[in-house]
């Protein structure tokens, strides 16, 4: 029971007054950073990194990890309340969270998100505690071919997302892929699609720019039109009785939460993937295994539970390659990694042996961060509901300002703000013409990862596509992806067959 000893030691460190205070402060801060559109955990951790020189390294990482965790909880809040994903990890939460809020079920959506995050976080920390070193070996075994296979699986889980109009879904995916190709091509080292020499395109089109544009600005335009001057857009209320009732009905989403937790964790430990693909995949899988997939996208609590449990689980998961291999599993852990260098710690296989206090203090504090994030989140739900009850004439300008600030903050480039406005108008028009928007967002997140890994793998294999099928890990993943791709066709054939039998 060596692990248990370590963990108890870790708790002794995590519950030192200074560290516990840092956990609570970090969770609360992270919650608000995550809830601000555009300001995700990446920016929060980056901004606060220099402060950590004031406390010992263990306290510093505990503080930053608490912010990371809090931001994962917070991301769901703006997804649900405003329909704008607070961070890329919370995109999938908007798909069902926003419709729930519009139906006056915002309290239920928020509670579902918070509880799912808590369970996802807890399951993943337990997995982390028990199996960190062997899972590091799994992460190490993932090369370019495996990464591409995983991306294919992610695309495949989303095959049903677009709705019924296949040509429009395809259009949406392809436009997303084109956007994702803008910027530097890492293989040839040449800039692509930068419209002559517009230097703002050199960093590519950030996913957040597209998401804030079509979900923030586009959603606002849409609401202005659909509410027809009615200033009260949501009939959200919250009472203690409703909260208790919400908690009682949570067991319906239990399956999705557990699935999301495990899926999120395993995707999270793979380098380069991170929490965004994890949460998107969890949403896709939840829809696929659901008894009534049609209700997804229209306010199904499972559509909130699955991605929220997955993104928290993945954020724990992505700490694993950071600590054991010294490679970041997500943009936020990349900054944490920089922090470790500043504190004089060498991430890598030796960290677990040479700096046990640091590692186990961090792990124990993740348990605590999870609990406090949940409590703080639930305590603030009435305040969030109050925001939603503001007249739209007040809310709309606030959303607009948040969108602009959120789009400017990460790159501090006006270029991105103009793009947001353009995407907003185009997103609104696409929605009016009934084009599904989620596939475009998915494509811009997964596109660059898939493209790079595919070309790296093909370079290695001298252009032979067999590399994706021959290798022991990528082969089965690729096969699973193929089955999922073909599933709708089987279904179509079956339905045709059945309807013919019926007549």
């Amino acid at each position, binding site marked *: 029971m060596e692990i248990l000893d370590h963990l108890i030691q870790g708790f002794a460190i995590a519950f030192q007054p200074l560290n516990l205070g840092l956990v609570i402060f970090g969770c609360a801060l992270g919650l608000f950073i995550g809830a601000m559109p555009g300001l995700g955990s990446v920016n929060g951790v980056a901004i606060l990194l220099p402060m950590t020189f004031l406390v010992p390294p263990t306290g510093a990482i505990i503080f930053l990890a608490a912010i990371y965790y809090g931001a994962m909880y917070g991301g769901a809040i703006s997804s649900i309340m405003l329909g704008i994903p607070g961070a890329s990890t919370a995109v999938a939460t908007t798909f069902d969270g926003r419709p729930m809020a519009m139906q006056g079920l915002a309290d239920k959506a928020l509670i579902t998100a918070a509880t799912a995050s808590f369970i996802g976080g807890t399951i993943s920390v337990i997995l982390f505690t028990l199996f960190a070193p062997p899972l590091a070996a799994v992460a190490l075994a993932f090369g370019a071919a495996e990464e591409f296979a995983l991306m294919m699986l992610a695309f495949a889980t989303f095959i049903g997302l677009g709705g019924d109009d296949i040509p429009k879904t395809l259009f949406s995916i392809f436009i997303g892929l084109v956007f994702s190709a803008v910027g530097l091509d890492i293989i040839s080292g*040449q800039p692509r699609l930068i419209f002559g020499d517009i230097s703002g395109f050199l960093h590519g089109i950030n996913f957040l720019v597209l998401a804030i544009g079509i979900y923030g600005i586009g959603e606002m335009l849409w609401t202005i039109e659909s509410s027809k001057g009615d200033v009260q857009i949501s009939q959200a209320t919250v009472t203690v009785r409703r909260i208790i009732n919400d908690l009682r009905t949570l067991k319906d989403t239990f399956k999705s939460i557990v699935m999301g937790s495990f899926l999120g964790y395993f995707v999270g430990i793979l380098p380069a993937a991170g929490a965004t693909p994890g949460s998107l995949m969890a949403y896709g899988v939840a829809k696929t295994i659901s008894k009534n997939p049609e209700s997804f996208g229209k306010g199904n609590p499972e559509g909130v539970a699955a991605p929220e449990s997955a993104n928290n689980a993945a954020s724990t998961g992505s700490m694993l*390659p950071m600590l054991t291999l*010294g490679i970041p599993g997500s943009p936020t852990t990349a900054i944490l990694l*920089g922090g470790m260098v*500043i504190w*004089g710690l060498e991430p890598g*296989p030796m960290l677990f042996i040479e700096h046990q206090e640091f590692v186990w203090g961090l792990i124990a504090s993740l348990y605590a961060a999870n609990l406090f994030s949940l409590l703080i989140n639930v305590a603030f739900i009435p305040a969030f509901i109050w925001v939603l009850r503001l007249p739209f004439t007040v809310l709309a300008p606030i959303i607009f300002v948040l969108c602009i600030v959120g789009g400017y903050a990460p*790159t501090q480039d006006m270029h991105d703000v103009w793009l947001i406005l353009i995407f907003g108008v185009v997103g609104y028009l696409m929605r009016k013409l009934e084009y599904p928007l989620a596939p475009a967002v998915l494509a811009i997140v997964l596109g660059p990862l898939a493209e790079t890994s595919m070309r790296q793998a093909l370079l*290695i294999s001298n252009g032979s596509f067999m590399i994706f099928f021959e290798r022991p890990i990528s082969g089965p993943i690729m096969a699973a992806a193929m089955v999922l791709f073909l599933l709708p066709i089987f279904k179509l054939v079956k339905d045709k067959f059945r309807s013919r039998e019926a007549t």
Partner: protein
Amino acid sequence: MKTLCKTAVMPVVVAAMAAFAFSGVALAGWEPKKPVDFVIMAGKGGGADKMARLMQSVIEKHKLASKPFIPINKPGGSGAEALVHLKQKAGDDHTIMVTLNSFYTTPMRQPGLGVDVMTFTPIGRMAEDTFLLWVHKDSGIKNVQDFVKAAKSAGNKWIMAGTGKGQEDQLLTNFLNKAYGLDMKYVPFKGGGRVAKELAGKHANSTVNNPSEQLGFYEAGNTVPLAAFTPDRLPLFKDAPTFRELGKDFVYFMQRSVVGAPGMSKEAEDYYRDVFKKVFQTEEWQGYMKKKSLQGEFLTGGDLKAYWQREKDIHQKMLKDIGEI
């Protein structure tokens, strides 16, 4: 007792006088009037980013500047985005940048940018990063001779992982290919950490990582350094000979420098030079240099410009050799 008092008091007096003198200088000189844009020519989490954030933390910890330095990552186009940004900020006293060797290569490979780095304001070279040739421990390769033999028989199936196209790692790969008659295949990945992991996971056969990138795996015994691209052996890796010792006179460094926007005022230039000179002398920076096997003295002004000119010429030749320009 009296002498004891005296010896205890003396340093205090000296320190107070020094502080007085120093504050006098600071009052007379230029100071930033708003937060300083601290542009990083690479993405978050990379080697340049880590170093920039370390500098920022040191500045903040020791209160070396009166206004905060705000890091902004501009990784686009192998640093092209950052270079263009700096060029557009000509004459600005509040924009500085952390840079590396794409400072030379990116403007050569993308002449359309119209960037002439020699117009940039030289503030300080904080260090030179070193490179080594690495293989996996399980490959059984112990020295460069074994390496050449194995790579030769593998032909173009030998995979060298590196960061980016037409950048440091590929230049070194090209050198090795030419010097030893090899046909290694270069596969670019995003970031040195990722490259190190590709080797540790045996997806690549060799890398030319910086020490800071491979250190974790090296300490765990997963990877082995075969030789260094430095004039002398590195203290951290005493067993790895230099290529110079092996009869190939080839030395390559990566600069870790801070530059200012072109046309920055002389007063601002002096101010930043002072700040970064102090950063260089702090215990934290010196400790970091030692730990990550960084080399080089603090260079500034005309010396730094001369260094850039020399390095620029070298890179021009190397890029011509691999047909990138």
